[in-house]
């Protein structure tokens, strides 16, 4: 098992060369990062190349990096992360690409390559507002009909913006601004690197 990520990374390096923005093996998992412009093409090669055979898209998720490590984030804000699996070779790969524009994040859709991406991209669009170029049916999926905003963005409060209740006078369910007081029981703390070091029990 342990030799596999190294073997795979060698293949990927020779295949993509400079088009890989980064390649890292960490905790036995291989992650590559590519520019948004190369993303679709590289995904296509990963799927179709007979030596790679990533025939299955296991997962696609959006990530908002804006408050990473409790510090202002320097790079681009939104990323789309693919988890690919090759049933033939029994290896996994993580492919990440950042959207160029933070205010209008657009990433190519991979629905053509893996039909499974359809709903995953709808989900990432719904929760993060990432637009998938080439997706034929980019509707919201998890949130309510008529929902405003993208709830998993870091600037979206956990309690949301609106709440709903039954209004006896109007005799229907109405939306109103939330009455929940935001509360954080345990603050989010980033300690120095060696603090929670499990090696020093």
């Amino acid at each position, binding site marked *: *098992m342990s030799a596999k990520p190294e073997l795979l990374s060698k293949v990927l390096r020779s295949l993509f060369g400079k088009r890989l923005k980064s390649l890292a093996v960490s*905790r036995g998992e291989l992650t590559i990062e590519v520019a948004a412009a190369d993303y679709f093409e590289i995904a296509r090669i990963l799927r179709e190349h007979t030596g790679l055979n990533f025939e299955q898209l*296991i997962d696609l998720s959006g990530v908002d990096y804006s408050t990473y490590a409790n510090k202002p984030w320097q790079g681009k804000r939104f990323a789309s*992360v693919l988890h690919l699996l090759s049933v033939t070779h029994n290896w996994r790969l993580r492919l990440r690409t950042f959207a160029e524009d933070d205010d209008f994040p657009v990433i190519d859709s991979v629905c053509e390559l893996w039909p499974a991406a359809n*709903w*995953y991209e709808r989900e990432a669009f719904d929760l993060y507002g990432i637009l998938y170029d080439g997706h034929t049916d980019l509707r919201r999926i998890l*949130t309510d009909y008529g929902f405003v905003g993208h709830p998993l963005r870091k600037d979206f409060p956990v309690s949301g913006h609106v709440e709903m209740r039954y209004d006896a006078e109007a005799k229907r369910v109405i939306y109103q601004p939330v009455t929940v007081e935001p509360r954080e029981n345990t603050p989010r*703390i980033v300690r120095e690197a060696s603090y929670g070091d*499990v090696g020093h*029990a």
Partner: protein
Amino acid sequence: MSAMHEIRNYTLNLGPQHPAAHGVLRLVLELDGEVVERADPHIGLLHRGTEKLAETRTWAQSVPYMDRLDYCSMMCNEHAYCLAVEKLLGVEVPERARYIRTMFDEITRIINHLMSLGSHGLDIGAMTMILYTFREREDLMDAYEAVCGARMHAAYYRPGGVYRDLPDSMPKYKASRFKNEKTLKQLNAAREGSLLDFLEDFTKRFPKCCDEYETLLTENRIWKQRTVGIGVVSPERALALGFTGPMLRGSGVAWDLRKKQPYAAYDKVDFDIPVGKNGDCYDRYLCRMAEMRQSNRIIGQCIAWLRENPGPVIVDNHKVAPPRREKMKGNMEELIHHFKLFSEGIHVPEGEVYAAIEHPKGEFGVYAISDGANKPYRIKLRSPGFPHLAAMDELARGHMIADVVALIGTMDLVFGDIDR
């Protein structure tokens, strides 16, 4: 006026409150007579924002949320989450905990499949099925209760191991107006010893129960008419659509993470992977049935190992797992550890991992990003049901509306994990 104008597709709204919708599925069906032209599932009616909530809780606090994802296979969800945290931390789980996890994963698999088979039967006309399956499910629920106190939402797996060792006694039925001395004795017969004794008795009884289920369904003409040739998926298509678990194996792809990428103690137990041939609802049913028998085998092996090998069930690293309660009462160091662990929480080193397990429904994965804080930066839950339901449109096209119900049953949908 030609007659052509009169022909129109009919749009039907199935659910969200429908007994066959397995929860809260809203399915908008476009029908031509009784034939489905297009199926558009609307999900999210059970969306609770688990991923967002996990970002605002410490690493340990999110474990109970995992139970509530797929509420038919609770401990498996916890397992994937704990594996992700352990992988980030780089801790090694004690071997006894691995075996306990393997055993309870398989118990969970049987619980899930019993639920799935029972309700699948109920949906397409085999009423009695659920009465039989829930009889055995009850016993396994009791095993859950014995080990963690809760029948469903266990929170038994913890990062670093499991909460506590297996109990020496089983809860027993008490006398009441409805149970006389004789029934009571019968009911409590298997519960006199420890949990392992109870489970051993179960593993001996269970193959016969499986035979009973098979008598009801496998050669049943009505059951076969409703499932054979319905929702056929080719192996290539199943892979492209992101199918995993019995949905993929039903199409003949022998892919099982327990064998291919073993975790816990799966590399040390002996079992087979059942695969289907035709990729229809009937083959997937057969796969699930055979899987239960295999799970039973694994449980038997785990019981034998657990009897022989006592040992710790959670890591002895107080940055990850709390110290023993007795020690905590008399030792300052341990008290501080306990306090810090339950107030501030575990500090997980920076990095990202994807941990996947063979959940009863398919591959359940947790993609965790840590920025070095006491809370996750991002948790993405890869639920197996999500891509399965996404393929509903493709599978239902051209089938009759009654077959949609069979498809919902065969996908084994649970909205807790699809909507998250």
